Every structure is written in structure tokens, then in C-alpha cells.
């Protein structure tokens, strides 16, 4: 019981003033409120923090050139992941027309390409260079998921492309 019984003393003489007794009953409602709030909090937080997994399937390495996936030049978009979260991209097979973008803007570029190309021709080539981080690679793979791109591949940039990125980085002052 929340209230405490207060025993009145019987030794009350005639001259003793009766002091007014405050109720000792405590309102427990706020405490209960708090209790349930915490319970709700714990229930919600215990299940949420499970890590998720993203599927990644890599192709088998083949020496045989005939088994390589053929990509139509008109449908290809190459994204090169460079240092400092910068993406260098070019269309078709023309690295000299390389442009620069970031991870936020790349979605529009992918979507634009997707809209302008027949679905069976579209192919995105991802080339993370030595300075890209793991996060960059996962982000771009995630971007493929988000934009519902089914045909893409992850390969290394050619030495020429790597040099170009290096030069651009030096020119752009990216350390």
C-alpha cells in the first residue's frame, strides 16, 4: 500500500494544538507513466538493431575472351570511384570525355542513362580505383539496387584511366 498509516498518539493533552495532517498518499501516476514509457522504449530498441546483409555475386574469372560479357557501346556508362568520394564518369567507350560528380548526384546520372537507353543495352561498369573506400563501393552497389539496375559489373580501371584520374585529381587539388 502506498499510504502509510500514521498512528495518532493518544497522549494529547488539553493544551496541545492539533497540527493539521497532510495526506501521506503519493500520486503514483507519473511514476507508472515513466515505467511504461521505458518499457515501450526497451521493447522497440531490442529488435531493431539487427545488421542486414547485401548480396554480392561475383563472376568467375575467365581467361577466355569469348566468355566475356559483351557490352554495347551505346548502352554503357562507366563510373570510376576516386579519392575523396568523387565519381568520374563517361559514356560509351570514351574516357577522354570524363566528367566529375559526387555520390548524391550520381543517381540522376544513372536514371537519365536508364531512361535514354533500351533496358537490354544498359550496362553500368563500376571501376573503383585504389583510393576508393569500401563505403564507396557499397554505396555504388546500393545505388544499383535503388535504381533497379540489373546489369552491372565491377572491374578495375585500366592504367590509362587510373592515370587520368590521378591527373584530374592533381589538377583539381584533391589530396
Amino acid at each position, binding site marked *: *500500500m*502506498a499510504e502509510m498509516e500514521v498512528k495518532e498518539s493518544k497522549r494529547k493533552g488539553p493544551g496541545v494544538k492539533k497540527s493539521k495532517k497532510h495526506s501521506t*498518499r503519493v*500520486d*503514483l*501516476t507519473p*511514476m*507508472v507513466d515513466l*515505467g*511504461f514509457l*521505458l*518499457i515501450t522504449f*526497451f*521493447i522497440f*530498441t*531490442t529488435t531493431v*538493431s*539487427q*545488421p*542486414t*546483409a*547485401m*548480396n*554480392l*555475386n*561475383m*563472376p*568467375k*574469372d575467365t581467361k577466355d575472351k569469348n566468355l566475356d560479357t559483351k557490352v554495347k557501346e551505346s548502352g554503357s556508362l562507366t563510373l570510376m*570511384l576516386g579519392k575523396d568520394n568523387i565519381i568520374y564518369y563517361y559514356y560509351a567507350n570514351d574516357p577522354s570525355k570524363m566528367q566529375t560528380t559526387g555520390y548524391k548526384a550520381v*543517381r540522376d546520372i544513372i*536514371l537519365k542513362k*536508364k531512361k535514354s537507353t533500351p533496358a537490354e543495352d544498359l550496362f553500368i561498369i563500376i571501376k*573503383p*580505383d*585504389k*583510393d*576508393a*573506400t*569500401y*563505403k*564507396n*563501393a*557499397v*554505396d555504388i*552497389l*546500393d545505388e544499383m*539496387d*535503388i*535504381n*533497379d539496375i540489373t546489369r552491372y559489373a565491377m572491374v*578495375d580501371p585500366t592504367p590509362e584511366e587510373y592515370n587520368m584520374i590521378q591527373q584530374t585529381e592533381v589538377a583539381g587539388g584533391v589530396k
Partner: protein
Amino acid sequence: MARAKIKRGSTSVDMTPMCDVAFLLLTFFILAAQFKPTEAIEVNPPMSVSNRVAPEKNILNVTISKDNKVYLIMDPLIKGDVLDELGKQRNISFSAQDKANFERTDFVGVPLNQLKQFIQLKPGEAKGADLPGIPVDSTNNELAAWISAAINARMGQQLNFLIKGDDRAKYPTFKAVIEAFKANDQYKYNLVTNSKAVPEGSELYKKNRAAQTDKKTTE
């Protein structure tokens, strides 16, 4: 003015039992909640929109730390077999004591030639940051040996390969890990990520919405 007094019951309810129940439940949830154990290897995985829960059974987890060191975490069930198999492959003999010590460790984070010292460490003493990690260079890819040992130890049963990388890990390390898997003819991996919401209006968002409405109409 003599009027019969009706005794009025108090309208205030005694909250004590409710309060008791509330706190009992609270205590239960606090105690029952499994707090994330402090990890020996600190890794902050990137985000993805994937909503598949990472597998927890039959796992072989390759963790890449922020300073590009590679660690291996195995399903406790296969640890003993993996060590046997590795010993066979590399002609290293492990005593029963070594094996017991090995089964106690949470992860592997050293090259093979330091393995015997490493398993002497008590659990909790091994901190990922102080250890050199498993070599994954193309010349000396010991991770491939571990993976091969794990596959053989499992004898054809499907292992779930998890790769858990830190945001700041560099791509070449990740590629070296992939190469190690490829060397063993394994091409399917699960990248461990934290989930994030699918951006509204994106293609996947529309696709998911369409799938949901389809489900509703068929129900």
C-alpha cells in the same frame, strides 16, 4: 437537519500494483535485453537499403577494419575442424591444448606464423587494433588458406560468407578479400551493412510499392 450520510468510496485508485507490474516488466526487459558485446574489432559498416537480415548460422565472417587489417570470425562449431584442416594443409601440428585455446578465441587476427602465440592470449586480451591482421597480399594470401580450410572442414555444407567492412577501409583490401574467396571458387557473399530506408520516389521504392499493392489485391 439530520440527514443520513452516504458513505462515499474514494475515487482515487491505488496505483501501487500497476506500478509494481510496470517496474517488474521494466526490470525484466532490461535484464533480458542482450546488450551488444563490446567488440574486439571496431567496425562501422556502411549503410544500404537491403532489408535482408544477415545470416547468423554457418558463418565465416571476414572483417575489414578501418586501417585495412583483415580478421576472420568463424562459427564456433567448425573452429576445431578448421584448425585441423589448416594444420594438414600447412603441415603445422597443433596439440590438443592449442586446439582448446583456439576454440576459445573470438577471432583470428594474425599471420599463421604468429598463430601459436596468438592463441595463448586470453579472451578479451586480444584487441583487434594491436594485431597485424591476416595477410591478404597477392603473394601471401593466407586468408585463402583459411577459407579453403573452412570449406573442407564443412565438407560441402553451405557456408555463409559474410564480409563486414568499415566505412573507411580502402577498396584494394576488399578486393584482396574477394580474390581470396575467388581462389576457392566462392562467388556469393553477404556484405554486412546497416539498413537505411529506401529513398522515396526511387525506382526500388516504386517497385516495392507495386509489389505491396499486388499482394493486397491478391489477398
